[in-house]
């Protein structure tokens, strides 16, 4: 593949996309000269066609859901319906200023209000705030609410949050951000939380526990009811990390499992785009005990009029987490998706995500792959361990991932969760067809076969991608983070 030059290499002094800016420089003589730039910024000087061509070519260097199967565990890379994007980008929505009064936003607010109501229905929680801008910010909101709850009761001794070892890395980081100490508890051999360890960890210093269910191990926490009773008994609260909600959508309500507060990744379960790393939306939902602490703004309804509820209307709130209203346009996309699915469609999401995962798991096991939890049902995802293959051939999970890229598949999640050695966490989602899953199984089996005979060939993968494996040590040592002032001149073309 022909590499695409960095856009600065195409720059020519005096060139511009002329129709895109005012035709002349307006008079700024009343601004003090001392405040003005002494030298212009060196942005690229290129034509509109050059820009269009350059970024179109860059896009073609990517894998994406629209071009490739993306079985990336814990990320729920399902089809992002085009309608959601088109309708969220209608001019009336795009042009609305965030500080415009409510009467110029009844259509927008109606969508958000309905989204809140639908999310209440799928979680069983009593109230929802849509403002968190990513899963990690939703986690922050939830943990800050737990802290606010204990504080409001004058219960200052509770300074420990319990986090299972299988948790997402953001869970302990969030707990730390909220001023909590993290106590990690182990998982048992079958993938459930070790209840004896939990019991030992609970005490008068317990603020709560952060849990994902089904867990990141791809299995449902079977003793969740017992577990939540134990935590509540100790005076702690339960936080539900909604990362895996796709597995139980329309079947199990997190509130009924005993959770007090949770976040939902709209960019996973409700199919808003991942956009090459964001924007996401990590909306937060809470039961009656915690609802008054939810972040603002929230959309309220009074006599068929929709209105923002802020600090004045919700004085116990943990406050605002964004300058305006979170990732509003992403919320509109989730709203469109949920309205298109309806109640039945949502239940079908978990049904077919689970069917696809269990099918893929059965087929891969039959093809000789070792399952991390062979005695368990898969949730919407499952783990295979390449530990034995790595011992026998030296081919690691990373090598396997790279070999998949050469065969036209995005790699599964590798080396997460941390407790399974040489693992691949595989999540097919409900939107993939049987043929695509079969093609994936065939590719996996072929790579395994090749690994047994010619490990070096796998170690050399990928070969068909725009670049081969990159020198990451060099990247971190000889930092080259910008075009001007980079350590070395660019390589000759």
């Amino acid at each position, binding site marked *: 593949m022909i590499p695409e030059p960095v856009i600065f290499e195409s720059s020519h002094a005096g060139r511009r996309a002329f129709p895109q800016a005012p035709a002349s420089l307006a008079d700024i003589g009343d601004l003090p000269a001392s405040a003005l730039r002494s030298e212009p*910024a060196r942005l*690229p000087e290129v034509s509109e066609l050059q820009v269009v061509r350059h*970024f179109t070519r860059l896009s073609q260097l990517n894998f994406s859901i629209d071009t490739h199967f993306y079985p990336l565990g814990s990320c729920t890379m399902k089809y992002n319906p085009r309608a959601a994007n088109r309708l969220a980008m209608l001019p009336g929505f795009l042009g609305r200023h965030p500080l415009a009064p409510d009467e110029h936003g009844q259509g927008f607010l109606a969508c958000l209000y309905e989204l809140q109501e639908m999310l209440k229905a799928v979680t069983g929680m009593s109230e929802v705030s849509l403002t968190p801008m990513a899963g990690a910010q939703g986690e922050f909101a939830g943990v800050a609410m737990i802290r606010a709850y204990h504080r409001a009761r004058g219960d200052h001794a509770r300074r420990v949050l319990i986090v299972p070892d299988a948790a997402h890395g953001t869970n302990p980081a969030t707990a730390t951000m909220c001023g909590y100490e993290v106590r990690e508890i182990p998982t048992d051999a079958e993938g459930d939380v070790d209840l004896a360890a939990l019991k030992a960890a609970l005490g008068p210093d317990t603020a709560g526990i952060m849990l994902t269910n089904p867990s990141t191990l791809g299995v449902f926490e079977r003793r969740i009811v017992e577990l939540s009773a134990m935590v509540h008994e100790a005076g702690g609260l339960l936080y539900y990390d909604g990362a895996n909600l796709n597995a139980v959508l329309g079947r199990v309500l997190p509130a009924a499992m005993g959770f007090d507060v949770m976040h939902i990744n709209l960019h996973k379960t409700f199919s808003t785009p991942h*956009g090459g790393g964001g924007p996401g939306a990590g909306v937060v939902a809470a039961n009656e005990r915690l609802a008054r602490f939810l972040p603002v703004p929230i959309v309220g309804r009074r006599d068929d009029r929709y209105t923002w509820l802020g600090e004045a209307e919700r004085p116990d709130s943990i406050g605002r987490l964004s*300058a305006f209203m979170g990732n509003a346009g992403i919320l509109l996309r989730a709203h469109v998706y949920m309205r298109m699915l309806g109640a039945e469609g949502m239940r079908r999401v978990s049904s*077919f995500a689970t069917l696809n995962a269990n099918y893929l798991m059965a087929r891969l096991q039959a093809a000789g792959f070792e399952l991390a939890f062979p005695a368990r049902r898969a949730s919407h995802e499952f783990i295979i361990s390449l530990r034995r293959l790595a011992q026998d051939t030296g081919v690691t999970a990373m090598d396997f991932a790279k070999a998949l890229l050469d065969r036209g598949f995005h790699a599964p999640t590798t080396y997460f969760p941390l407790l399974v050695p040489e693992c691949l966490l595989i999540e097919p989602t409900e939107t993939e067809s049987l043929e695509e899953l079969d093609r994936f199984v065939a590719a996996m089996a072929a790579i395994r076969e090749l690994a047994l005979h010619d490990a070096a060939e796998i170690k050399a993968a990928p070969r068909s991608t725009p670049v081969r494996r990159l020198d990451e040590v060099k990247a971190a040592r000889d930092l080259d983070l910008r075009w001007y002032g980079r350590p070395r001149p660019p390589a000759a073309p």
Partner: protein
Amino acid sequence: MPFIPHTAADVGAMLQAVGAGSIDALFDEIPAALQVEGLPGIGPGLPEAAITRLMSERAAADGHPLCFIGAGAYDHHIPAAVWEIAGRGEFYSAYTPYQAEASQGTLQLIYEYQSMMTELTGLGVANASLYDGATAFAEACLMAVRANRKSRSRRVLTTRALAPAYRRVARNLLEGQGIELVELPLADGRTDIAALAASAGADFAALAIQQPGFLGTLEAVDELTDWAHAHDMLVIGVCNPVWLALLEPPGRWGAAGADIACGEGQPLGIPLSSGGPYFGYLGCRDALARQMPGRIVGRTVDLDGRSGFTLTLQAREQHIRRSKATSNICTNQGLMVTAATIHMSLLGAEGLRRVAAQCHANTRSLVQALCALPGVSLAFAPYCHEAVLRFERPLAPLLDALSAAGILGGHDLAADYPELGHALLVCATEMRTAADIETYASTLGRLLAAA
């Protein structure tokens, strides 16, 4: 079935391979008492034609009022090519570029974005973006507290000339880590330089200033930067990126330049969209690179010695440090950065400079037109792309009447700046024409005369 390709025959074959009698049987590890049958309160699914009609009606109902509000989000022209390309599926539906070989498009684009942002800020390093301007400001404060080797203070000195929403959000996000914001007062719509003396003896990790300030005025950035450095504080500059093409960038403030820059990226090709998604930018001096939160892309070489791009400095991230991490940031606003990079490439530095200058000129026309009305006066000068107007009566009823006439007259400062009296923050971007300004002035004139 919406978005699910399975035929009945597929389902039968798959269940057989799994050895299960039904799809429901796959959920047999979940206690039966926890399972629900339906979702009361959620209606039936809508076909695309029906949801299109519903959403089109709602979008149209929100109207297209004439907007003279800025206050942190600006109505700029966005070239058609920006979202035509950013909306391509290869950008739109890609994941975070963890598999570098399969993500060179996103990675190279972020490297180009970082390169452009360092040019605009005058600082050596930019990350791949954060959620929005307010959260970028909070992360900048957190970073300053971590990075300041001369001070162990967990307090950041800021000013009432900095966006109230940013100060509010930073407080909410940082309070759990015991970080406190202290505010300098205003004098003439800018940070009161005379008040610095009172803070000189106290220990602060950083001074955070906004240029142009929230009230549209220019801060004495050189003097403030030098003062802060003389008192062992780092300097955080909060800037509108379009104005960075016209004004001296943070990297050149004072004798040594600011240490950290951050702000709201929305003016770079992101639609207003009721407040989001936007993106926050964050940059710093080279020496602070390893203290920077969020994703950073670096250029390196592959096995064949070809140039390529990868996420780097990842040891800083929560993936590895877990409970040792001081920020839980795990994402950037990738799609928004895609749009912004295309936008900056189309406008160039000269285009952005002209946009800033035109906003200033249009706001000046607006100020002149409105101040010609009785009881309206300019509060502070000079001003940049927005200005504060003083009125002789409460603004809420006037703004309501303007809104009913299809005009968003500005941002009422009563709640955040009661000390300014009846004060209105107005903004006319390059999108407002002379006729738009005349419409506003004549409508306001009628309302003032009628009252």
